[in-house]
C-alpha cells in the first residue's frame, strides 16, 4: 500500500460519505481487491472461505463507516476491520468443528467449487423478512437501480431505500452475532 493509494482512497471515502455514489463504488471495488489479497495471504490452511470474509468485511465497513475519522488515514481502519472479521471467521470455524463433525466430513468430501449459493451472505439474506430480502436481491443480484426496484414492486423510492438499508444492517448484525442461517 503506497502513500498515493492511501491519499486517493481517503479522498474517495470522504466523497462517498458526502453522498457521491460513484466515488463510493470506486472505493468499494478497490478496497475489496485489497482485502481479498490480505485475507488470502492469511488463510493458509483452508476451511474459511476467503470471499466470505471479504464480503463480511465490506458489510462491516459499510455499516460502520461513521467510525472512520475523516482526518485519519483510511487503510489502517480498513485493515483493522478486515483482521477483526478474519479472526471472527477462524473462531467460528473452531466452534463448528467442536460441535458438528458431520459438517466437516462433508466439507472434505466435496471438491472446492465456486458454488455461489453456499455463501454465508446468501443464507443471511434468506433469513431476512420477505420485503427486505426482495429489495436487497433486486438491487444486488439483479442489478436494478433504486428507481427500477421501486417500479418493479410498486412502492416509493424512499421505501426501497429504507428496506435496503434495514436489510443490509440486519445482515451485518447477523454476521456480527455469528448467526448465518434461518432461525
Amino acid at each position: 500500500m503506497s502513500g498515493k493509494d492511501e491519499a486517493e482512497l481517503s479522498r474517495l471515502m470522504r466523497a462517498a460519505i458526502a453522498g457521491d455514489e460513484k466515488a463510493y463504488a470506486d472505493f468499494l471495488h478497490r478496497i475489496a481487491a485489497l482485502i481479498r489479497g490480505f485475507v488470502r495471504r492469511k488463510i493458509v490452511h483452508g476451511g474459511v472461505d476467503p470471499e466470505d470474509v471479504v464480503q463480511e468485511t465490506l458489510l462491516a465497513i459499510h455499516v460502520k463507516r461513521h467510525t472512520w475519522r475523516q482526518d485519519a488515514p483510511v487503510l489502517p481502519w480498513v485493515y483493522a476491520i478486515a483482521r477483526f472479521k478474519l479472526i471472527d471467521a477462524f473462531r467460528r470455524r473452531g466452534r463448528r468443528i467442536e460441535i458438528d463433525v458431520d459438517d466437516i466430513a462433508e466439507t472434505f468430501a466435496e471438491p472446492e467449487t465456486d458454488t455461489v449459493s453456499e455463501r454465508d451472505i446468501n443464507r443471511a439474506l434468506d433469513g431476512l423478512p420477505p420485503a427486505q430480502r426482495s429489495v436487497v436481491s433486486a438491487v444486488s443480484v439483479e442489478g436494478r437501480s433504486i428507481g427500477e426496484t421501486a417500479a418493479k414492486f410498486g412502492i416509493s423510492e424512499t421505501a426501497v431505500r429504507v428496506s435496503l438499508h434495514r436489510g443490509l444492517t440486519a445482515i451485518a448484525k447477523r454476521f456480527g452475532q455469528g448467526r448465518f442461517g434461518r432461525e
Partner: protein
Amino acid sequence: MKTDDLIKALDADARSKAMPLRSAWWLAAGVAVVVAAVVFMMTIGPRPDFMAAAHTIRFLSKFVFTIVLAISAFALIRALSTPGATTGRAMVAMIIAPLLVAVAVVLELFMVPQALWSTRMIGSNMMICMSFIPLIGIGPLAIFLWMLRYGAPTRPVLAGAVAGLLAGGLAATFYAAHCFDDSPLFVATWYTIAIAALALLGALGGRFFVRW
C-alpha cells in the same frame, strides 16, 4: 451473491447517514453525566457540609482522582471504539489516576499516626460507598456499552472494561460529594473495589453484548 453484487447494494445505500462516532461519544458523555447526576440527587445527594469541606485538601483530592480517571478512560474508550486508531498513549495515561492515589496514600501514611491508619481506611460508610458508586454508575455504563455497539471495537472485552472504568470514574465523582470519608486510605480501598466491580461488569458486557 457475488462480491460485485454486494457492492452494488452497498453503493445504492451510500446516502444513508449516521452520526459520526466522535460526536456521538460527546453526546453519550453528556447524557451519562445527566443520568448520574439525577440518580445521585434523587438518592443520597451531596453532604450537608459540602461548602466547608470544599476548603480541605483531602476532600478536593477525591475529585482529582475520579475526574482524572474519567477523562483518561474517555480518551481511551474513544480510541478503542475506532478500528485502527492508536491506543498506546491513551493506555499509558490510564496509569495517572492510580499513580496519584498511590502518592496520596504514601503522603497520608506519613502524616497520620500509625494508630489511626486502620480507622481511616475502614472509614464510616464503606457499604454506602460500595453500593452507591455501582448504583450511580450502572446507567452510564449501559449508555457506554450501547455506544461501543454503535462503534466498532476490535477488542470488545477490553473496551467494555474501560467503559466500566469510565462509568466508575463518573459515578465516583458524584459519590465523592456525598462521602464523609476523605482519607486517601479510604478512597484507595473502597472506591477502587466499587469501580473495579463496574469494570468487571463492563468487561462481561463487552464480551456478550458488544458484537458487530
